[in-house]
C-alpha cells in the first residue's frame, strides 16, 4: 500500500470530524474519496498531508509515518488541497520557482509541468490575472513539480468549466498511466466514476465502504433501472404504489426506478398485468446511486 490511514481520529471541540478511519490505497490506483459535505474528507486529506495533526492514529506513506517523519514521508507526494491559492503578486513561474527551491530541486521541471497543464504561454503573468480555472491548473502544476509518485487531489475540478474538467480528467488518466498513484476527493460522482479504479465512502467521519469501483457497483444491492414504457404516466402511478420500489422518477421520456436486483422481474409482470407496453429495461446503476444508498440520502 502506498498510502494508509490507521485508526485516524480528529475532533474539533465536541464535534468528531474523523472517527477511527482506516483506509488502504493500493499503489498504481486512482482512488476516489467520497462523502457528503462535512463528512470529514478534507480533514482526512489534511491529516494525510500533515496540515492537521490527528488526535489518534497515523498516516503512512510508503510505510513512513507522516506525523513522525514529515520530510521522508512527503518527499514523493504532490498535493493540491481544496483551492489553488498562490502568491498573487508573483508570476506563475516565480511561484513555482519558490516551491522548487523548497523542494531542494532545480527549475528544470517548471516548463514541463506548466506545459502539461497548458499554462506555459502564460508563465510570466502574475497569478492575480489568472482565471479560477487557470489557478486550479497551476495548483495541479505545483503538485507535479516534485515528480511525485503519489498525488493527493482535493476537489481539483472546483470552479472549472466542462472542458476544464475533461482536461483534468484526461490529465489524471495520463498521470496514472505513467505509474503515479492518485488519491482524489470530489463531490462530482460522475467524474469519480469515470476516472477511479477504487473508491471509499465516508459519512459523518466514519468509514462506510471501500473497494474496487467495479466490484462495488456489481455487488450493489440497490439498482437503478431505466424503463421505456407506454403509457408512462400509468406505469409511474402503478410503480409508485408499490412499497418495494424505492424511488421512481420520470426523466427524458423514461422511468428511472430504484429497486433490489431480484425484484426486477416483478416489474415486468406487474406492468404487463396492467397492460403497459415495455419497450426496454436497461440497468443503470451508477456510482451516484450507490453513494446515495450508502450515505442514506436516497429518499426511496
Amino acid at each position, binding site marked *: 500500500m502506498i498510502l494508509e490511514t490507521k485508526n485516524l481520529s480528529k475532533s474539533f471541540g465536541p464535534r468528531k470530524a474523523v472517527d477511527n478511519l482506516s483506509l488502504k490505497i493500493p499503489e498504481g490506483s486512482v482512488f476516489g474519496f467520497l462523502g457528503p459535505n462535512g463528512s470529514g474528507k478534507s480533514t482526512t486529506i*489534511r491529516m494525510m*498531508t*500533515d*496540515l*492537521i*495533526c490527528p488526535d489518534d492514529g497515523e498516516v503512512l506513506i510508503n510505510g513512513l509515518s507522516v506525523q513522525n517523519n*514529515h*520530510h*521522508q514521508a*512527503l*518527499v514523493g*507526494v504532490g*498535493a493540491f*488541497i*481544496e*483551492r489553488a*491559492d*498562490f*502568491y*498573487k*503578486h*508573483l508570476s506563475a513561474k*516565480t511561484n513555482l520557482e*519558490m*516551491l522548487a*527551491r*523548497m*523542494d*531542494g530541486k532545480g527549475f528544470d521541471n517548471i516548463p514541463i509541468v506548466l506545459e502539461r497543464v497548458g499554462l506555459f504561454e502564460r508563465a510570466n503573468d502574475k497569478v492575480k490575472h489568472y482565471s479560477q480555472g487557470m489557478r486550479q491548473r497551476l*495548483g495541479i502544476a*505545483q503538485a507535479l513539480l*516534485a515528480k511525485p509518485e503519489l498525488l*493527493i487531489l482535493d476537489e481539483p475540478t472546483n470552479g472549472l468549466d466542462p472542458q476544464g474538467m475533461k482536461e483534468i480528467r484526461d490529465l489524471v488518466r495520463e498521470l496514472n498511466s505513467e505509474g503515479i498513484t492518485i488519491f482524489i476527493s470530489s463531490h462530482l460522482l460522475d467524474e469519480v466514476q469515470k476516472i477511479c479504479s477504487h473508491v471509499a465512502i465516508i459519512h459523518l467521519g466514519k468509514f462506510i465502504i471501500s473497494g474496487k469501483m467495479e466490484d462495488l457497483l456489481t455487488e450493489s444491492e440497490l439498482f437503478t433501472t431505466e424503463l421505456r414504457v407506454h403509457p408512462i404516466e400509468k406505469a409511474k402511478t402503478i410503480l409508485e404504489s408499490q412499497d418495494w420500489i424505492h424511488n421512481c422518477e420520470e426523466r427524458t421520456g423514461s422511468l428511472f426506478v430504484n429497486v433490489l436486483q431480484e425484484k426486477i422481474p416483478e416489474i415486468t409482470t406487474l406492468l404487463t398485468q396492467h397492460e403497459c407496453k415495455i419497450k426496454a429495461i436497461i440497468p443503470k446503476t451508477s456510482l451516484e446511486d450507490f453513494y446515495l444508498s450508502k450515505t442514506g440520502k436516497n429518499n426511496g
Partner: protein
Amino acid sequence: MIGLIHNELLKITGRWRSYIGFIGIAILMPLILWGFSYGGGEIHDEYAQELGDNFIVVGSIFNAFLATYIVMNAFWIHMPFLVALAAGDAVAAEGAAGTFRIILTRSTSRLKILFAKLFATWIYTAVLILFLAFMSLGIGTLWLGSGDLIVFDKGILILDQSEAWIRMALSFGLAILVMCVVATLCFMFSTMVNNGIGPIVGAIFLIVIGYIIMAIPIDMFEKMEPYIFVTYFDVWQQAFKDPIPWDRIIKSLSILVLYTAGFIGVSIAVFLQRDIKS
C-alpha cells in the same frame, strides 16, 4: 535554508505594507534635515549657550551626527510600528492567503519554514534601520556636513569625527538588535493568527504598556522595570557614553536575547502544533 530565506524575502518585498517604513523614512528624513538646515541656527545657538564660556566653538556643531542623534531619539518610540508592519505579516499572511496549503504539504519541515521566515524578518528589520542610517547620516552628511558630535547627557561629551562614526555604527548596530526583539515579538503573535493586523496591535500594545510602566514613577512599577524587556530598548544610547559601558550593554543584550529566545520558543510551539484549517 538560503533558498527558503530567499523565498521569504521575495514575499516580503512583494507586500506593499513592507514599504511603508521605507517610504515614511524617505519622506520624513529629507524634511527633518531641511528643517534642521533651515532652523538649525536656533539649535546651534542653544548648544553654543550650553557650552558657555568653557569652549570655543569652531565651525558648525550642527552637523549630520547631531541631526542623526536627535532624529534617533525622536524616532525611537515610532520605529517599532514600522518594524511590526512587516513582521506581523510574516506568518499570518500565509494563513490569510491560504498559501500554507501549498507550502506546508511539501517535504520541507515546518521548523525550517518558520526559521526562514524569522531570519527574513530580521533581515528586513536590519535593512530598515540601515536605511534610516543611510538617510540620516548619508544624506545628512551631504546636506549638513560632518564634524564633531556633541552629546549632552549628564555632562558634555564631545566626540571627534572619526570616533563619532564608530559610535554611530555601534549605536545603529545595537538599534538593529533591539528592533529584532520587537520583530520577534510581533512574529510570535503572527504564528497564532491568520490576520496581520492582530500581531501588530498585540506587539505595539505590549511595548506601549512597557513604556507606560517605565514612565510612571510609582514603587510597584519601578520594581517591575528590570523584568520588562522595553526597559532595555535604550541600549543604543549607551554607544554615546564615555567610556562605553560595555557591562551594561552586555547585560541589556543578554536580557533581550533571553526574551527573544522565549518569543522564538513560543513561536515554535504554536506553529508546529497548529492545524491548518483554512
